[in-house]
């Protein structure tokens, strides 16, 4: 059997995730018997990652695994378990993080097993946030050094153990594939055989990390560890957790933001087969049934009267009038260089404003949470980007101490920032308080879309002075909601949302007089949240659209104009040159077809993107091709970086072409994929991603495609039609000339 006795199950019914999972796996019979054992031993394991030792004749101390830090556990059979501080939402983080650990540990990649981290804001704090958070495209870049140090320290202790055992100097021992090796004597010891001795040792301070030229795993495409169970239906997402006796619930909140329940008549609902109960809370109504169909039918059969509250008249006009007015006020200065106001008089001044709509996350896995409240505590099964917050939310609502709440994380069926919130946990615990036994709460698509936290509307006002073919002054005002002020209040300082101005304050162009200010404007009624791409969404769109407009004002080619301002950013300049080359920039195209370039420095990565799109006379757009050049520093898993750009660009194109949540009478007008469109395969362009080799520290990747695509597309549409779009999504009526800009 390939696995040692310490069994790690990612999900009930799933195989453990292992480094060698694409090699011939363990015999199915063995897997089954392990699964049965887990059933017997742990009674119910929804979708937990379960560590389980088969009892044997040894004493507890000899059986104890070696757990030198929060990320690594080695048992005496040599099984290496890597505990994932960051959750897997599709970006390949479980594989990349495991590669980083295994690299410095010199573990046998085919033998590593993965485990979700438990909730713990200290042990598993993301260094950037100081909390257990997966977001901001920073899993690799923020954990890069801490994980390497943890693994290198562990390896060093194992070497010390071997040195003691063999009575040789540690410097004569090397490690490879989960073994310590003394070449001179030919002795080898598996890590598992060294852990008893390692227990008493501690790693020396400042253990040296590997020279990147010695990397064996990092930089070489490894197959993802989370995907085999995703092609055969075996992976258990939170929505798939089925504790014995589970009931099913779905809910309706007041369609108007902030509204309350006034009255509920459940006479008809009670006739629905499988109906169990109605739960009426202050701001939502839930129906519990024997299955989701009963819950859904029951909910539809309710006659609910809502008190719509103060927002019942709010419309898009209110949102935009308020934001536009706010954007005319001076904001808090986020960055200033030179004298932007004074320098404006020294050239030809250009000004433009760019506007982005509300967007829903529309994760394919709708919001859900399963809760079992017992007299002794509470189990919560969810897919969360903030597991410790999920646990704390459940504890607060249930009135339990933290240690009475078991929060179980799952592979996530799409996060995109939505699962940085814990509202679904709060609602599910409230429902569970009224239900005898476990209850799974699943949001319908409509409820998910109408009660999201939305990507804020933004208005970016830019002005610049041009002189001698160069930008001599630049002013950028970002106006919009501050998600940070709600989500991480201590980070909101001096009126500046560091996320909203991210990649505006550090934009790459060399401009001597420069100012960015921020106006916080909270939209009426509509709750806002982080959305894939976060601050760089509005800034990349505004800056790169504006750069094209400036180039146009002086009749300069958009690539050449950007190049002229990139002397201080050689990495981006190199990406730009390669993008021009690979895209065939400047070569002829058919009528009503154009190329657009967009650059960005965001999430620590340097990216140049060229979109090629055609527009028919009716204004319909076809994106033909995307070429994307990426310098993300040291690349951990190259194929994952390519995949993230391919997918992220589609995510960004979807937003640019279709994405719009609108508000009327205090409610969201969209509800499902018919009116909140997604790009489909027949619309997807060819996408080429080229990676630039680099020895710089790793950058982030998960959100970069989402921010890169919209400006590249709109610049291509301008090249194709001469029509400049300053609002998203793309308006076909403006492109066709049926409507003025």
């Amino acid at each position: 059997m390939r696995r040692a006795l310490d069994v790690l199950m990612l999900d009930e019914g799933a195989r453990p995730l292992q480094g060698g999972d694409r090699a011939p796996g363990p015999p199915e019979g063995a897997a089954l018997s392990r699964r049965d054992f887990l059933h017997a031993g742990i009674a119910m394991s929804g979708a937990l990652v379960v560590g389980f030792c088969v009892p044997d004749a040894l004493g507890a101390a000899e059986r104890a695994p070696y757990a030198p830090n929060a990320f690594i556990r080695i048992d005496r059979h040599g099984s290496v378990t890597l505990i994932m501080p960051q959750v897997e939402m599709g970006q390949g983080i479980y594989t990349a993080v495991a590669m980083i650990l295994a690299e410095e540990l010199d573990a046998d990649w085919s033998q590593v097993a993965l485990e979700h981290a438990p909730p713990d804001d200290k042990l598993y704090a993301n260094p950037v946030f100081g909390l257990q958070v997966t977001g901001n495209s920073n899993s690799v870049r923020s954990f890069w050094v801490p994980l390497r140090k943890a693994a290198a320290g562990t390896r060093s202790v194992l070497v010390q153990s071997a040195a003691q055992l063999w009575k040789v100097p540690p410097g004569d021992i090397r490690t490879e594939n989960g073994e310590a090796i003394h070449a001179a004597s030919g002795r080898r010891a598996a890590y598992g055989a060294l852990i008893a001795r390692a227990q008493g040792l501690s790693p020396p301070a400042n253990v040296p990390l590997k020279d990147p030229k010695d990397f064996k795993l990092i930089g070489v495409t490894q197959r993802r560890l989370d995907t085999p169970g995703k092609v055969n239906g075996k992976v258990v997402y939170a929505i798939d957790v089925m504790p014995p006796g589970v009931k099913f619930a779905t809910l309706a909140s007041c369609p108007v933001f902030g509204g309350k329940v006034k009255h509920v008549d459940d006479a008809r609902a009670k006739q629905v087969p499988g109906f169990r109960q109605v739960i009426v809370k202050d701001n939502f109504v839930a129906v519990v049934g024997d299955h989701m169909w009963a819950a859904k039918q029951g909910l539809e059969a309710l006659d609910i009267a809502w008190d719509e509250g103060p927002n019942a008249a709010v419309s898009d006009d209110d949102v935009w009038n308020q934001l536009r007015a706010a954007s005319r006020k001076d904001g808090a200065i986020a960055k200033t260089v030179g004298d932007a106001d004074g320098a404006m008089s020294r050239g030809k001044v250009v000004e433009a404003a760019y506007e982005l709509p509300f967007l829903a996350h529309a994760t394919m896995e709708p919001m859900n949470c399963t809760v079992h409240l017992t007299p002794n505590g509470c189990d919560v099964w969810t897919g969360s980007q903030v597991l410790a917050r999920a646990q704390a939310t459940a504890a607060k609502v249930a009135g339990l101490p933290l240690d009475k709440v078991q929060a179980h994380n799952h592979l996530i069926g799409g996060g995109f920032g939505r699962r940085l919130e814990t509202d679904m946990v709060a609602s599910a615990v409230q429902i569970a308080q009224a239900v005898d036994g476990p209850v799974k709460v699943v949001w319908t698509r409509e409820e998910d879309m109408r009660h999201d936290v939305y990507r804020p509307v933004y208005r970016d006002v830019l002005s610049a002075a041009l002189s001698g073919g160069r930008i001599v002054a630049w002013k950028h005002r970002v106006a919009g909601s501050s998600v940070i002020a709600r989500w991480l209040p201590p980070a909101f300082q001096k009126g500046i949302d560091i996320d909203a101005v991210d990649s505006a304050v550090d934009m790459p162009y060399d401009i001597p007089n420069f100012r960015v200010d921020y106006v916080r404007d909270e939209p009426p009624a509509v709750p806002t949240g982080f959305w894939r791409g976060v601050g760089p969404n509005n800034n990349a769109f505004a800056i790169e659209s504006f750069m094209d407009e400036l180039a146009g004002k002086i009749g300069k080619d958009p690539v050449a104009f950007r190049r002229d301002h990139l002397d201080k950013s050689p990495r981006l300049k190199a990406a730009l040159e390669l993008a021009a080359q690979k895209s065939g920039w400047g070569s002829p195209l058919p009528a009503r077809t154009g190329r657009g370039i967009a650059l960005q420095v965001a999430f620590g990565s340097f990216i140049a993107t060229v979109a090629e799109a055609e527009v028919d006379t009716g204004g319909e757009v076809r994106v033909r091709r995307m070429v994307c050049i990426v310098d993300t520093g040291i690349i951990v898993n190259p194929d994952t970086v390519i995949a993230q750009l391919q997918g992220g660009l589609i995510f960004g194109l979807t937003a640019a072409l279709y994405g719009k949540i609108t508000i009327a009478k205090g409610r969201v007008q969209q509800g499902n994929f018919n009116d909140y469109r997604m790009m489909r395969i027949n619309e997807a362009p060819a996408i080429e991603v080229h990676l630039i080799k680099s020895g710089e520290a790793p950058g982030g990747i998960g959100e970069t495609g989402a921010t890169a695509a919209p400006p590249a597309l709109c610049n291509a549409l301008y090249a194709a039609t001469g029509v400049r779009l300053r609002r998203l999504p793309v308006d076909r009526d403006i492109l066709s000339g049926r409507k003025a800009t």
Partner: protein
Amino acid sequence: MVSLRINGETREIDAPPDMPLLWALRDLLGLTGTKFGCGMALCGACTVHLDGAPVRSCLLPVGSVGERQITTIEGIGTSPAGAKIQKAWLDLEVVQCGYCQSGQIMSAAALLARNPHPEDADIDAAMAGNICRCGTYVRIREAIKHAARA
């Protein structure tokens, strides 16, 4: 009681006949590989086969299935086309979050079974009903062609 033939087995369930097959599979039979995405046959996450043809189980009443053979993601690997598609999905590393992929694989396996060498237009026609929020379309297209060559 409703009797269903699923992945080669006959299963009896206590379900109202208007209950969509999706919920019968997931909530009554524990076959959770078939996913809920939209409830309106708009996204394809719930795709299963009825006698080999792809259908959206979120709108298909269990009472209308009758004697037809249901195949789900849990069973598709036993068909030659299904096994090829699953392998191609891993070989080309199609999957990201994976939530839509059960449905994508079911649509792709049905395509490959009836058309062993699909062209781009065939792929568009067969797969346009399946949304992938992670945007894996480029690799889905390649993986179908890869499976066709296998």
